[in-house]
């Protein structure tokens, strides 16, 4: 109980800090929302009037305070560029980015676990070396470039999907998932390569521990020793890595959305940053922070489940 209360407090403190930092950053970086709205032809008096109307003349803390109160009430402000409520613009984009990130995460696990175990079982032999080489190459390629390669090969050469033919989740959920497969793969592959390398090393290291000799002495065969004894121990560093990766994947999704023309948070974030549409940017970043913090809240009990030596305090 104490643990949950403490976690919730740290959740809200972190969230407040992140939102304030983003707020402060926009006050410091050059660029004027009023100017980007009215264009360079606007007169100084027009600009000053609009700034007043947008509330930009008020002190930073006051602006932050009123923004935070509205945010908690579900009002994320109005977009400077589109004059529409921000909530309406981004809430239906969150499921897209979240699905993409989660799909990438699942693919990472599905690729890394079997290959990592297989490589460890065949340590030093040719399948291990082949997996190692492929992993090194994949790790070195950034997701957006991998996205371009996948689009070219599977989209344009093999025609397994139509580049740019995004299917909305409201109209066809399976089609939506199908379209997200290759973008998710682009995000997942470099992370999967890292996770499998980590798992392979971890399995090989655990196989040399004393408890493995004990397990053999009781009459376990190699697979029983691997799956009932070694694997759970070997997964501990991998789960830590995957926990960090999951948050990384949300950031990764934002970039890959550009390559595959997916109308998620990433696209709208990019256009809002260049248009100095601060309410939109602010809301998106706070939402990403919420997703990341919620993920961390979920990951902690998983660590505890896998390693009993970790105490939930």
């Amino acid at each position, binding site marked *: 109980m104490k643990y949950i209360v403490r976690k919730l407090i740290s959740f809200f403190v972190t969230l407040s800090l992140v939102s304030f930092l983003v707020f402060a950053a926009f006050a410091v970086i050059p660029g004027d929302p009023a100017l980007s709205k009215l264009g360079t032809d606007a007169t100084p008096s027009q600009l000053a009037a609009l700034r007043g109307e947008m509330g930009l003349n008020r002190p930073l803390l006051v602006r932050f305070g009123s923004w935070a109160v509205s945010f908690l009430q579900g009002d994320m402000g109005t977009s400077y560029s589109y004059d529409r409520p921000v909530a309406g613009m981004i809430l239906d984009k969150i499921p897209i980015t979240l699905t993409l990130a989660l799909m990438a995460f699942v693919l990472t696990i599905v690729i890394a676990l079997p290959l990592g175990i297989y490589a460890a079982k065949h340590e030093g032999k040719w399948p291990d070396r082949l997996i190692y080489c492929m992993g090194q190459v994949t790790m070195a390629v950034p997701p957006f470039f991998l996205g371009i390669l996948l689009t070219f090969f599977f989209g344009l050469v093999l025609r397994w999907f139509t580049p740019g033919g995004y299917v909305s989740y409201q109209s066809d959920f399976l089609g939506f998932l199908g379209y997200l497969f290759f973008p998710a793969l682009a995000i997942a592959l470099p992370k999967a390569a890292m996770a499998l390398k980590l798992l392979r090393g971890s399995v090989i290291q655990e196989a040399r521990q004393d408890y493995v000799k004990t397990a053999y002495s009781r*009459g376990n065969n190699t697979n029983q020793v691997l799956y009932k004894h070694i694997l759970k121990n070997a997964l501990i560093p991998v789960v830590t890595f995957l926990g960090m990766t999951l948050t990384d994947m949300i950031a990764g999704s934002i970039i890959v959305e550009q390559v595959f023309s997916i109308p998620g948070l990433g696209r709208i974030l990019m256009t809002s940053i260049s248009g100095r549409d601060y309410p939109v940017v602010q809301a998106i970043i706070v939402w990403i922070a919420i997703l990341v913090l919620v993920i961390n809240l979920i990951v902690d009990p998983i660590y505890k489940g896998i390693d009993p030596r970790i105490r939930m305090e």
Partner: protein
Amino acid sequence: MLEIRNLNIEFHDHLVPETVVHDLNLRVAEGEIVGLVGESGSGKTMTALAVAGLLRRHDMQKTGEILFQEKNLLECGRKELRELQGSEISMIFQEPMTSLNPVRRIGWQVEEALRLHTDLDQKKRKERALEVLSQVELPDVERVYRAYPHELSGGMRQRVMIAAAIICKPKLLIADEPTTALDVTIQAQIVKLLLKINRENQVAVLFISHDLSLVRQLCTRVAVMQNGYLVEEGRTESIFMEPKEAYTRQLIAAIPKIERVD
């Protein structure tokens, strides 16, 4: 019950093959406790691992015979060997701190040999596990059953290892330096416990140690190894009272004695 005949163990992991056990002959009768002593590198652990079927590296060669109940273990297939491991031949190791799986509950680990070698259901397995945990004199066995290894002390973990080793009532228990990592008072307790288990379960014990004072307390017969050779073998008292070999005399002389200063 166990008869080792002309056992040779040779490693081929270097340019020149290295023989770590030469022509070893040793017998362990039913219910007997035999001590295998010698300094580090004398080949005693290699012999123990060979008997337990745990020396399966490709870069080594074993010749001779290890007859367990008239079956030559060196000629057994892996499956046949696994059927004996944990059920007929059990082993406990030097490091109780690392010999248990850190992420599995004690109960799960103690019951493992039952899961592998019997058809008992979960309830029966737990009953038997609690029974052996009591037999090794652990307090509050229900709590120990649910605990993880890191929640127990070194002495308790070694008791757990013994409980797990005897759960299927094996004929032979190989104890490879089971007290070396423990402090002196706990060592004495573990030795007493092994004696008790030997009597109650009629299990033969091959006790590997470099500590001759423990061997004297526990074993009925002693075999002394040096550089891979068996140099002397006989009843414990005669070895201690009238050692024939110079090396055995050196080992006995090396036992620390408490003497009065005046």
